[in-house]
């Protein structure tokens, strides 16, 4: 699509995904040259309301987010959800479990009515999302790959296999052998198993694969004396907004 005009936007989140774009370092200057960044709140002062591609970070957690996202949805031709918050609602959804109204009272007390907060949702609840760069944060190369594919007119490849495949490929010892529980059997790969590779259990920050083999995960849990409840609690960290029926599908 030539040199596309790109807008990089942040809704409710930590800014870490936008930071990963700035962290491209060696590739950063090439990235800036390959696309025409017309809006990048974290790094650039000038901004324009004309763009073809929108990279959106963060979840929808306020009415203000809804208004901004709907506007971006009208302007952009292609929307890329960047990071767990945009893709699944991410960690912000833990607030929904606690209860949004209750959370307002807990944090802001009798001043709660000054606060604009709604139940957290992924951006796909409001706009059509064309591509997903999953993870918390996504890998830098993945963000670049998606944008690069768009420029050369290819469909970006997204991993549809579980993290276990990557661990096997890397020759990692299974974390269950160390007594560490891990979402690897059902979690979507693409991160090169970066948490299990440093002996930290996968928390499925990239969500689950499309057709997870829940039974394999259950067998594994049984084998190591764990329950589905144990693991679902961990799965909630980044996927609390994913509906339960979807989770157990």
């Amino acid at each position: 699509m030539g040199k596309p005009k790109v807008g990089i936007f942040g809704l409710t989140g930590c800014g870490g995904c936008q930071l990963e774009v700035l962290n491209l370092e060696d590739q950063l200057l090439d990235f800036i040259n390959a696309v025409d960044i017309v809006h990048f709140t974290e790094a650039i002062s000038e901004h324009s309301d004309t763009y073809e591609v929108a990279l959106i970070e963060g979840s929808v957690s306020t009415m203000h987010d809804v208004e901004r996202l709907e506007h971006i949805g009208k302007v952009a031709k292609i929307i890329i959800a960047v990071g767990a918050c945009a893709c699944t609602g991410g960690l912000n959804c833990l607030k929904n479990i606690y209860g949004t109204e209750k959370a307002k009272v807990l944090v802001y007390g009798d001043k709660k009515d000054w606060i604009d907060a709604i139940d957290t949702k992924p951006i796909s609840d409001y706009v059509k999302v064309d591509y997903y760069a999953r993870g918390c944060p996504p890998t830098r190369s993945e963000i670049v790959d998606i944008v690069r594919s768009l420029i050369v007119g290819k469909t970006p490849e997204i991993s549809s296999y579980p993290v276990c495949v990557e661990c096997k490929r890397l020759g990692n010892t299974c974390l269950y052998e160390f007594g560490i529980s891990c979402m690897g059997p059902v979690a979507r790969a693409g991160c090169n198993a970066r948490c299990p590779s440093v002996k930290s259990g996968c928390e499925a920050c990239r969500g689950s694969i499309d057709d997870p083999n829940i039974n394999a995960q259950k067998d594994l849990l049984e084998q190591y004396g764990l329950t589905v409840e144990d693991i679902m609690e961990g799965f909630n960290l980044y996927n609390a907004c994913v509906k339960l029926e979807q989770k157990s599908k």
Partner: protein
Amino acid sequence: MATNLNIEVSPLPRVEGHGDLVLDVKNKKIEKLQMRIPESPRFFEAMLVGRKYTEPSHITSRICGICSVAHTFSSIQATEDALGVKVTDQTLKLRKLINHHECTQSNCLHVYFLAAPDFLGVGSVVPLIKTHPDVVNIAVNMKKIANEIVRIIGGRAVHPITTVVGGFTKIPTEEDLLRAKDMLISLYPDLETSLKVLKTLKIPEFERETEYISISNNEDYALYSGDIKSTDGWTIKPQDYLTKLVENVVQHSTGKHCRASRDSYMVGSLARINNNFSQLSDNAKTYWQEFGLSVPCYNTFMNNIAQFVEIVHCVDDSIKLIDKLLEEGLDESKSMVEVKAKAGRGVGAVEAPRGLLIHDYTYDSDGRISKANLIIPTNMNYANIENDLAALVPAIIEQSEDEIRLACEMLIRAYDPCISCSTHMLNVELINK
């Protein structure tokens, strides 16, 4: 000359998000001056309730992508304090090493990418790629090295993985540390070049004495741990922070406002240097003096320089830490200590790049959080920013509107409120009344 002003900087964000500056001047008198913070509240205090002690550091890391390491450590310290966990000396050194490089990475990003364009009269770092390629390359390289060291030890540059309650899931190899040391040594010529360039910048003369608060300890220039110290003459244990630091909700801000001995205080690099200057590395002290500065320094704009000087300190001190770790030899068996759930309260206090950061957790006997309180550095600074602006505006009221607007933005940016905060500030709507 501006007799009447109605400046609205919007949007401008909070710790990581959106906010506005509202300045209303009539007949040279400030009618209204507010940093409005309508940014989405995140409700981490609610999200943490019920979570197991292994999770809060991963959850709270997501408060801020730019200072995820500081949140991780403040969280881990709070949990370890509550559960009575004492980690090994090796773990402490490795944690300090990561923390130093988040500080370097973040300070570097602010000084070179966000603040420098102001002083060079441009709107972002992009034009500097052409006009000042040497400095941009230095900045990119320095940030890359700092991120790489966080990655080597933490498993990832943003939201570290290996850092957990009790120690590390995996420690680096001696080769990793030697590689890190080589990278650090390679930075010295860049620091020299940066010093020369930064010395040419015209930093506004503006002084307003305030209360400066940071952590402090007897062993080192405190970034990872220490008691909470104020230039107003008190020092308290982190666990007693509520006896001095007061937070209150204000209508124009989802970020709470804070005060201690007076109606506002400042945290961050300048506060740390004012409190702990004598513990900086000799090299860093010399750099500070090269700018003709001494302590205490009451010019908020010098926070930019304080950040740069801290980079010098972090490089020096990291090499020292690596040498000690290598001398003692890395020991896998010292990477973790046993952690058991128990009821209790714990407080963690670290210096995030932007200043003092406090996590306060209460655990039940199953090791699940029943109550959490977090105090974020940018929140601590809001009230002080407003007080600074209230002092700055009358002093420059004879200047043009554009100059006043830019000076206000630069003052706010000097606090490095957060990467997105500062850059949002560049978009200003100014309406004449």
